[in-house]
């Protein structure tokens, strides 16, 4: 089996959260915390650090080759383990379909207003299928190659947009903002929680010498919190919380306004196109994790895969099945304007938050009670 290095695993975590961060964070945080939203990472960070420490401790005591799916089987046994894995793969496929659909919606809203989202959903889904048919290491290497490119573009855009930030859009923030700030931390928890949770499925593929992961996760959380704060500073500082909470894609609206050196402008089509990469990785990871869970639940050992895309043995036919399911979800989701918005603002963040922060603690609790840990 081709292993993932700890560095690649960390970059995978960083890249996968860029899609949800730009899609939901500025608007959701501005709605919850108003002007104080740019500080949303501050109250979220202690909780995230504690959770990251708990996850690191939990995995340090697991044998090598144990990802989240293997840990669930170990803790819950042959009876309940598969049930939980079916549920997890169901969520992963639903979430993958949702990302396909919302990515298509972003392209339609910002660049191609006369197009149908189905074209983008289908083509992206097929690309992700090709990636998911490969090895986990290929996905991790893809993340490592794409991360500098996408993050570099994001940082450049944020730095350029910081020059037009208005102080009145960001300050003052007082103690009276603390309750709102606590609410504003929820979207940050959601985004960073996903970045902590989803890579757990891939811990089984990581090099044994890459552990322990605690220090690496702390650095990762600090860096990502800083990046999200910078994103919120740029978007809120330019538009103000009142306007951001009404825009459907505030970051891309900001990009539409940017002018470089008084000559280069209207680059939003290029930037939106770049955000295909984080979506591609996120959906591919979801598909890969979903087929991993399903095959493990059905008694296979997906960790032994060699990443041969044309190999259909050992239940590998489930990979195209998973892709088909995610594409179908993407095609059927949000046929009306408000149903997609409701999913994007309420259902998906709530499910994400629950699964990201409850799955492993529940496994730990059950494992301790059943003495299977």
């Amino acid at each position, binding site marked *: 089996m081709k292993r993932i290095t700890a560095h690649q695993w960390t970059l995978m975590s960083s890249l996968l959260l860029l899609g949800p961060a730009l899609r939901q964070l500025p608007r959701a945080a501005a709605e919850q915390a108003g002007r104080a939203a740019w500080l949303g990472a501050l109250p979220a960070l202690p909780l995230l650090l504690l959770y990251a420490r708990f996850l690191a401790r939990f995995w340090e005591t697991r044998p090598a080759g144990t990802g989240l799916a293997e840990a669930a089987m170990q803790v819950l046994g042959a009876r309940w383990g598969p049930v939980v894995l079916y549920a997890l793969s169901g969520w992963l496929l639903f979430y993958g379909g949702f990302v396909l659909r919302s990515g298509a919606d972003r392209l339609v809203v910002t660049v191609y207003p006369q197009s149908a989202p189905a074209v983008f959903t289908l083509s992206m889904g097929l690309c992700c299928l090709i990636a998911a048919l490969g090895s986990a290491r290929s996905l991790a290497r893809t993340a490592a190659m794409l991360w500098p490119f996408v993050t570099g573009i994001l940082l450049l855009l944020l730095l350029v947009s910081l020059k037009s930030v208005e102080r*009145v859009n960001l*300050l003052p923030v*007082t103690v009276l903002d603390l309750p709102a700030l606590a609410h504003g931390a929820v979207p940050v928890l959601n985004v960073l929680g996903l970045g902590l949770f989803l890579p757990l499925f891939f811990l089984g593929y990581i090099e044994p010498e890459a552990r322990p992961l605690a220090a690496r996760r702390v650095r990762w959380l600090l860096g990502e919190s800083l990046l999200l704060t910078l994103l919120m500073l740029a978007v809120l500082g330019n*538009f103000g919380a009142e*306007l951001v909470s009404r*825009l459907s894609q505030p970051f891309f609206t900001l990009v*539409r306004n940017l002018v470089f050196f008084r000559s280069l402008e*209207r680059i939003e089509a290029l930037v939106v196109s770049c955000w295909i990469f984080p979506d591609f990785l996120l959906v591919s990871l979801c598909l890969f994790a979903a087929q991993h869970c399903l095959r493990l639940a059905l008694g296979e050992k997906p960790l032994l895969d060699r990443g041969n895309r044309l190999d259909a043995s050992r239940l590998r036919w489930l990979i195209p099945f998973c892709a088909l399911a995610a594409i179908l979800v993407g095609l059927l989701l949000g046929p009306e304007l408000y149903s997609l918005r409701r999913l994007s603002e309420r259902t998906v963040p709530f499910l994400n938050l629950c699964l990201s922060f409850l799955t492993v603690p529940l496994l730990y609790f059950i494992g301790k009670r059943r003495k299977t840990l």
Partner: protein
Amino acid sequence: MKRRLLLFLAAAFIPLLCGCGRLRGSFSRLEELRVVQTLGVDTAGSGLRLTLATAAGDRGADDVVCLSAEGPSLAAALSRVQSRSTEETLFCGHVRQLVMGEDVPLEPLLETVCRSADLRLDMPLWLLRGTSAEALMSEVGNGSRAVTEVLNAVRGELDARSDSRAYTAGQILRDLQRQGSALLCVLRGGAAAEDGTDARTALPAGFAVVKDGTVCSWLGTEALLGISLLRNRFGVQELTVSDRSGRPATLELRQGSSRVRPVWDENGALRGLDITARFTASLLETAESPLSEPYIDDLTARLESAVSERLRVLLTRSKSLQADFLGLGSRVEAASPLAFRRLETPFPELLPTLEISLTVQSRLLHEYDLH
């Protein structure tokens, strides 16, 4: 071998990804595109009248395309305009100026701008007084300049004098939501251009105060000085005052700023505002020579009095309209955030009850080469 074949196949697909396909009718040759740079909106019956204009470009005003059509909505009007432009495709991705007639409903228009995938939130929105957008856009310009160039020049002038204060669609929408009122830059059309021809131009005609979706007051061009001082967006402005002999003296004002200090009573209620405005000035023109210290002191006092009067007019208007178009609420909040949040009455409603004390301080720094 298999990898090379895959690489070759992937490379073969790249040309298909450039977006220049005839699929879905999105293909247009560059030379067939007319880049719309100014967009005008008027009311027409129960709908809207949309006028689009391109820039003059290298071939002068004769090359300008100015088309207009009516429709029940902006999108419908746009599609009618597009159908009239049979030879060329109109491209609205680079609209730089938006002009609107006096009676166009503001908030629906701003919402449309927000929803549009083509229009930008940072484009200035001009309100027309005494003319329609269609009339202004068709008549403004001369041999080398059309409406887009004229409006760009007006914006440049306004930006220099008030440090980027040609109010954009995004700023207006934000101010309306935050303060309940906003300022719009007003244009007057039909003025004769100063080039000796019979060409017409557009001139700044002050500001409109918008509250509850409608214009509730008009401010003249002289309000620019006070607005930019009170909103802390001061650029470079000239002001002519009468000196002690009644002769005009012109000064250039720079580095203006203001400080707003709220005055609270013992119960935590906002009683008044203590506003201090400061700026520096340079003497540009005077009939007095040689200059003496008493003359300079007197001129400085007169300058402060003139600026103070302009600020007082603005503040009185803001109080009487109960419209915080000067953003004083944000200033009070910045100075005393906790007390401001505890206010039971919205700040604009408090405005008429506030006692405002105004102090203007200036320094005459130099008078260029002569002294």
